[in-house]
């Protein structure tokens, strides 16, 4: 298949943004131990002591999954409009501005083409720091185009989800991005091209209830929260505390809703191997 050809592409540099705050030391969110900051950055946010997976930025994620100097960003100029002129305690425009400043990104997802262990892939990675990774029209559009590039170029598609759900500030337009991305995946499936869904903490609401749950294979990072309704909402509805581990990756594995739970540093090789199972050349 076309996408299997090994091609080197020049790097279109994307702003590399570390999520872990600056400073010499930081505290692990898992074991609460003090860790040397650089060590955490080098290990892609995994605690050397308890292997807690800290949230990492979309650009770090691309560095983790895509071969050096092969990522070519696409649709970086697709950005949110403000069709409803939405204003709560703050204007949506202002929220967008501060998210852009905070992340150095124009929108809550980075998308593009690249090589994964020398296999051509189309990939989109959500950025949680951009308004909670929420999906509005621009995010939905970039993800849809990523899938469409997969269809056009006959390449596998990888979507890495990390999101609080649909972006309220765009009202029903955000909700419709669920349908838009899912419909695009329907076309990809008809062409018999693989889609791998990777879930990282957290994935909830309209993102879980659309493309995140539609992977041919769904892979989650350990302990990631994956839900439709958040635990707080459910606790409120039923008026009791929730069982330990409820809605975590391992819970979903137990209940049959993800294929596997894979530690971050093994993700790339796992995906490469899966792609070979799907479309690699077979020796008879």
């Amino acid at each position, binding site marked *: 298949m076309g996408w299997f050809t090994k091609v080197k592409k020049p790097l279109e540099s994307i702003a590399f943004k570390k999520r872990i705050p600056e400073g010499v030391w930081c505290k692990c969110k898992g074991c609460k131990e003090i860790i040397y900051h650089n060590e955490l950055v080098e290990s892609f946010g995994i605690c050397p002591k308890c292997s807690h997976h800290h949230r990492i930025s979309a650009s770090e994620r691309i560095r983790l999954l895509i071969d050096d100097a092969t990522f070519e960003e696409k*649709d970086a*100029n*697709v*950005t*949110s*409009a403000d*069709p*409803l002129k*939405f*204003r*709560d*305690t703050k204007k949506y425009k202002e929220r967008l501005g501060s998210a852009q400043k905070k992340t150095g990104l124009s929108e809550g997802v980075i998308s593009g083409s690249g090589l994964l262990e020398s296999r051509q892939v189309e990939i989109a990675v959500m950025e949680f720091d951009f308004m909670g990774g929420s999906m*509005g*029209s*621009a995010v*939905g*559009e970039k993800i*849809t185009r990523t899938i469409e590039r997969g269809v056009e170029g006959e390449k596998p598609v990888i979507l890495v989800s990390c999101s609080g759900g*649909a*972006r*309220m500030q*765009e*009202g*029903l*337009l*955000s*909700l*419709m*991005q*669920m*349908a*838009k991305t*899912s*419909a*695009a995946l*329907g*076309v990809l*499936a*008809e062409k018999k091209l693989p889609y791998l869904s990777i879930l990282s903490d957290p994935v909830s609401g*309209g993102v*879980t*209830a*659309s*493309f*995140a*749950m*539609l992977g041919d294979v769904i892979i989650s990072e350990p302990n990631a929260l*994956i*839900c*439709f*309704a958040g635990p707080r*909402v*459910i606790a409120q*509805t*039923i008026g009791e505390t*929730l069982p330990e581990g*409820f*809605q975590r990756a391992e819970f979903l594995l137990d*209940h049959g*809703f993800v294929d596997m739970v894979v530690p971050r540093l093994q993700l790339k090789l796992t995906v490469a191997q899966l792609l070979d199972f799907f479309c690699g050349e077979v020796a008879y």
Partner: protein
Amino acid sequence: MDYLDFEEPIIKLENRIEELRERSQSDGKDFLPEIRKLRQKANRLRRDIFGKLSPWQRTKLARHPMRPYTKDYIDNMTSGFMELHGDRFYGDGVSIISGFANLDGHVVMVIGQQKGRDTKEKIKRNFGMSHPEGYRKALRLMKMAEKFNRPILTLLDTPGAYPGVGAEERGQSEAIAKNLLVMSSLRVPIISVVIGEGGSGGALALGVGDRILMLENSVYSVISPEGCAAILWNNPEKVEEAASALRLTAMDLFSHGLVDEVVKEPSGGAHRKPITTASTLRRVIRRHLNELMKISSDDLVSTRRNKIRNMGYFYE
């Protein structure tokens, strides 16, 4: 009869008219001139109040306890309805009612969310909040409709998909996501009508149609005004602001191109004249069905996909 705060002045007038009518019969006195005057006043009042409903008032109307539900539309728009049950995996999913029926010469698969009228039915229907079984039943029957080349009519009326432990354990997200994907590629016509409350993903899971219609006083939103106020305003009392900001009314959504047609309701809302509302809606559905039935399956799917594809506003 249950009524809303802003309906009260009208209801009071109507009660007064009714009183006078009864007295004119029993006392034999002629109250006709006064009744006529009061009627005019009531009509004026209704026009005034319903001519400028706020989005939050519209939301209340969409959730009106007397508002016609799926069952009422099935009774008043179709004949020969035969309910079909079960998702074939786990349960029936009774927040959703589904089955074949006749609608003006078409055999259609009707699938709608049912809120429940009295307390007993409300509890049985889980207030219209579906578990995954409901969505999976809907999916099974939509595929069955496709198999037998019958068009699909979905009626949307839910506060949202149910947020509960069992729903999560049994894959609420997966059930909704699967419906979105499959509905986008079904090879028979799909007409979706928001008849009351279009509550987020729980409504959308039945809402990927060739035609998306809304009754005039229905609402459709990514989140409830209550939820939005609590999260974005950090103040649950800001529901009016949230309802306005979300642009959730039928006319707002029509102007954003997300809805194909807004179906007029009788003055005062669908609950004032459920049968009139149903027959108006039936005529609109028939018109769309007649159009859609002429289109080849290939064109139907590609047009539907394009329609979904083009939803969204962004800069580039």
